[in-house]
């Protein structure tokens, strides 16, 4: 069995090590709760300094 999570475009920055292994077609052994990635700061929340 498998779970797939789909995130909206530009909503998550996935951790580099996971991306690097996957780009080598190599699965990474992980456990529940390990960090996957962080959300990209939403542009609308950014306030440009004058």
């Amino acid at each position: 069995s498998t779970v797939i999570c789909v995130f909206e475009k530009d909503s998550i920055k996935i951790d580099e090590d996971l991306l690097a292994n996957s780009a080598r077609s190599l699965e990474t052994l992980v456990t529940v709760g390990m960090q996957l990635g962080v959300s990209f700061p939403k542009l609308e929340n950014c306030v440009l300094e004058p």
Partner: protein
Amino acid sequence: GNGNSTETKESRRSKMRKKIQNFRSRRRLSRPGSGSVSGLASQRSVSADDFAGIALLTLIGAEMKFKDKWLACVSFGEQTFRSEISDSTEKPIWNSEKKLLLEKNGPSLARISVFETNRLLKNNIVGYCELDLLDFVVQEPDSTCKSFDLLDPASSNVVGSMFVSCSVEDPVETETCFAKRILSIVDYDEDGKLSFSEFSDLMNAFGNVVAANKKEELFKAADLNGDGVVTIDELAALLAVQQEQEPIINSCPVCGEALQLDKLNAMIHMTLCFDEGTGNQMTGGFLTDRQASYGWMFKLSEWTHLSTYDVGLNTGSSASHIVVIDRKTKRLVEELIDSKIVMSMRAIYQSKIGLRLMDQGAKEILQNLSEKQGKKMNSVESAQNIPSFLEFFKDQINMAEVKYPLDHFKTFNEFFVRELKPGARPIACMDQDDVAVSAADCRLMAFQSVDDSTRFWIKGRKFSIKGLLGNDVQSDAFLDGSLVIFRLAPQDYHRFHSPVSGVIEKFVNVSGSLYTVNPIAVNSKYCNVFTENKRTIVIISTAEFGKVAFVAIGATMVGSISFVRQEGDHVKKGDELGYFSFGG
């Protein structure tokens, strides 16, 4: 020789015709009594003198006197096969084929019955005809279409016409095609060449116990230029010669039947077995659970060792490996799978022939096996399997972190969906909802874009986000999104958790197949596991990540998906969402 030249074909054809004519005249002189046994070669021995060939019978269509939905049945010897049901018409077209074994002293009379099918009458016979297949191929050697009157079984009035063709395959061609076909199964990359390990796998599938050095000797004999690979043609030729000396094939790789007969019988048996379920074949007789359970072609899942079918996981030379990297230790870890299972999965999922076979009925077998497995694993007796399972995965299952002691689990399924002690899985940055976490104990693949996922991992040609999420989920926002795949192996903790904090917006169930989710299938261009398997999609609405689609996908044996949360529930990242268990 040049087997493709017109002259050679002509001379074979005329030889064949002569041979069949000889059989006909001898049969007329010494026709056996009734009660002759028919069927596959495994059921009785066929001597070279008795073998007339493999007849390809095609039920083309019929002309009836009224409009209805029609199906046709062929009875030959002790076997009966049926076509698909036609559209509602006066002129049904089936184009259904069946390969039948023709023997000198075997059955040759085929009875074709045409049934009307509707809700009120069910399958009501309307007409029938009988034809002698040997007569047919002698009179019409080029397999032209011939019509036969369909007779009413009650009054013998003519009620329609049946259109049929029949031809006999040249035994030499049957043999050549068979050798190439069986060898092509292990030609995983379809380059027409076999490596030694592929050849070795094939010998194992044939139930052959020849020593490793004998296999090597055989392989080297074919590898004339010593480059470590041989072409299928070279190997087919070698096998043909070797088979004369000592049998290489001891059991049928399709149905698992022991083949204690000669080369001819083995070849006939396997030719008929391989054809079953492929092309526009009539259905009948073969794809039973019992037969399926014996053949390696149907050992389609890494879970099979837990089934009743007694494959057993092997270690050492017969084990294959999937290599994964442990994120904690940064070490490569090998996942053991029996090489026969790997070979079965590759044969089925990574070849066109395999997937065609799957389309024609093996899907139902997977469903049935999974349902049966669910019942079995819910029985009290199944608890007996827990200790051996733990022993096999002793380095990978930590009972110290399991919530309940071993004697708490009354069935294997209860153990399979075991809960862990609170705190056994620390959640990263628990107070920061802008950090997403792993949803399962698993082997994970992550891609920043869908394009990357198809470039590096998902090879099914029909994969798309829209296909994955189905028609009932608004998928536009996810189309160019990021993808994380969590694959659970047999020994893994089988509960899944929310990777993000948010509100569960909705659940959508999509019915489908139960293909394996092993990388062998995911990496196959012919198989579309993620868009064809049974699955449930959960949409979680979050403040930090927008919407997240969580898709739980069932697989062979482990096809049951349960949730412990409902629509409208607020979930914190790391909260349990549900679990996978044995079942259909």
